[in-house]
């Protein structure tokens, strides 16, 4: 009896798995084959067939444009944001763990509250602030708010990690006469390294793919980051879907490389702090 049920369950979950896999793989396959199609090949024939005469023309079209500018902007914004968030959040998490006074508890609660603020809800005041700070239409205008909104989750993850460092290690350093800064740099930072890498990869992915801040806070083409640039391509190429798909592939490649190099950290980062 139970083997029948087990077989049924296995068949059902196997079937669901195949359906979902097809749902994920077919669109991604379509993106890649479409990006390799010539114009006429695209408008006629089976969209799921391999391209009759595969061509890299679409990639050439994209790369001949301003793609490198967009790519560079995305890299600058992502690296700067992640660097700021890591430095600032590690210090904040350390002080929250080291000091158990009401102030530090209040700070912690503020970051908790921050988790619940929808980005869109505060975009108008952020826009006003950025204009008043004379930063509108600069990469810094994307970096600072992105860093601010990456802070809550980053601080939470780092706090939960630093809390697990045995107290005796801190005490040993106090006996050695170490101050807070030395403890942060030579104890907390090295010990939190796995958490730092994980959360950096996670924050990096979020910033790389972020769209709202670039959309609202920048204007000129030479300040566009990749997700914004994709919408520009859509306008520029119009019905030239193969070129748009080539741009989609190119904009995703860097994250694919990160995925290949740091899959474990990426998966851990996505579930860290949530699956505990």
């Amino acid at each position, binding site marked *: 009896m139970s083997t029948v049920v087990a077989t049924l369950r296995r068949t059902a979950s196997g079937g669901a*798995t195949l359906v979902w896999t097809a749902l994920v793989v077919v*669109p991604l396959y379509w993106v890649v084959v479409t990006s390799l199609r010539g114009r006429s090949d695209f408008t006629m024939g089976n969209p799921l067939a391999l391209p009759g005469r595969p061509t890299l023309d679409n990639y050439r079209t994209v790369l001949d444009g301003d793609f490198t500018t967009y790519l560079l902007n995305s890299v600058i914004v992502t690296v700067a944001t992640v660097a700021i968030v890591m430095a600032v959040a590690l210090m904040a998490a350390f002080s929250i763990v080291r000091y158990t006074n009401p102030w530090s508890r209040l700070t912690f609660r503020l970051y908790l509250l921050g988790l619940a603020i929808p980005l869109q809800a505060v975009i108008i005041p952020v826009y006003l602030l950025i204009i008043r700070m004379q930063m509108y239409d600069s990469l810094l205008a994307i970096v600072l708010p992105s860093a601010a909104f990456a802070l809550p989750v980053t601080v939470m993850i780092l706090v939960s990690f630093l809390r697990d460092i045995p107290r005796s290690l801190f005490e040993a350093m106090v006996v050695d006469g170490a101050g807070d800064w030395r403890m942060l740099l030579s104890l907390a930072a090295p010990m939190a390294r796995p958490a730092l890498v994980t959360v950096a990869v996670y924050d990096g992915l979020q910033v790389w793919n972020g769209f709202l801040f670039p959309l609202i806070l920048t204007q000129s083409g030479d300040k566009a980051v990749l997700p914004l640039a994709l919408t520009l391509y859509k306008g520029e190429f119009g019905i030239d879907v193969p070129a748009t798909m080539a741009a989609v592939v190119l904009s995703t490649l860097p994250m694919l490389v990160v995925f290949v190099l740091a899959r474990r950290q990426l998966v851990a980062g996505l579930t860290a702090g949530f699956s505990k």
Partner: protein
Amino acid sequence: MTTVVRTRRPVASHRARPATGRSGRRRYSGLLMAAPALLLFGLFGLVPLVGVLVLSLSRWDGLGSIGWSGFANWTGVLTDGATWQALWLTVKVMVVSWLVQTPVALALGLFQAPRGRLRALFAVLWFLPLLLSAVAIGLTWQALLDPSFGIGAAPGLHWLAKPLLGSPSLALYTVIFVIAWQFVPFHALLYQAGVRQIPVSLYEAAAIDGAGPVTRLLRITLPQLKYTFVTSSTLMLVGSLTYFDLIYVLSGGTGGPGTATRVLPLAMYITGFQTHDMGRASALATILVVFGLALSLLTTRLSGFTRMDSQQEGM
């Protein structure tokens, strides 16, 4: 090294406290360490939270000077049928998304949980949508669902050659499907991690008691996934308030066809940055803030998500 770090003890006993001597200097450096993050988060996170309320009482076109307007924006927003429609669509997207994504994510998470080479391969494939930006996903599905040149032109798939995104009655559900495509892998990962955290001893005990696979699923796995379920649901519900990017791209920035997919964040964006009525947009944004905070307060109350201790304590 990591084994030392990961040792779990009750929180209070191992929290590092500064020694009492030199505490003055210590407190000073602690403050200095907390300051940059607080400044950054305060300026762009907390100040705007108050700012959006203030702006909702003002008149501003996004460029010129800001004037006081009292409650005009609020009476305007609250008596406008479009606001209520946007709110209704937001709730609809939230609830239907949750109903669609939860069972699929749970099933996939359960399947992915046992380790194995084939499952690992599936896991890699399923993970791919998480790497794409919402814009890339939006452009892809928009082109893929094009009635003439999209996937409907493939043999056997002609039933898909319909204006799925262009029809007022189907557009919202198509959007919900694409949202699920983007986010189900993430929630499947959560459930997978949840299943893997269930102590093997529970299954061993059940096996001794002669429990079959169904009993094990219903009596051990599902109850043990309670926290994962609440966490995943919280993220889905609160997250559904932020499906801006995807809907923006799928509807070409209009929330259309007509207003068929104009959820609250999109209505806010269009009012503020296309119609240039920032005051009124801020009133809509305030509703969004209240909505978001109320939702997460409610769900954290229910779940104890804010508790920092381990749920495995005492196992």
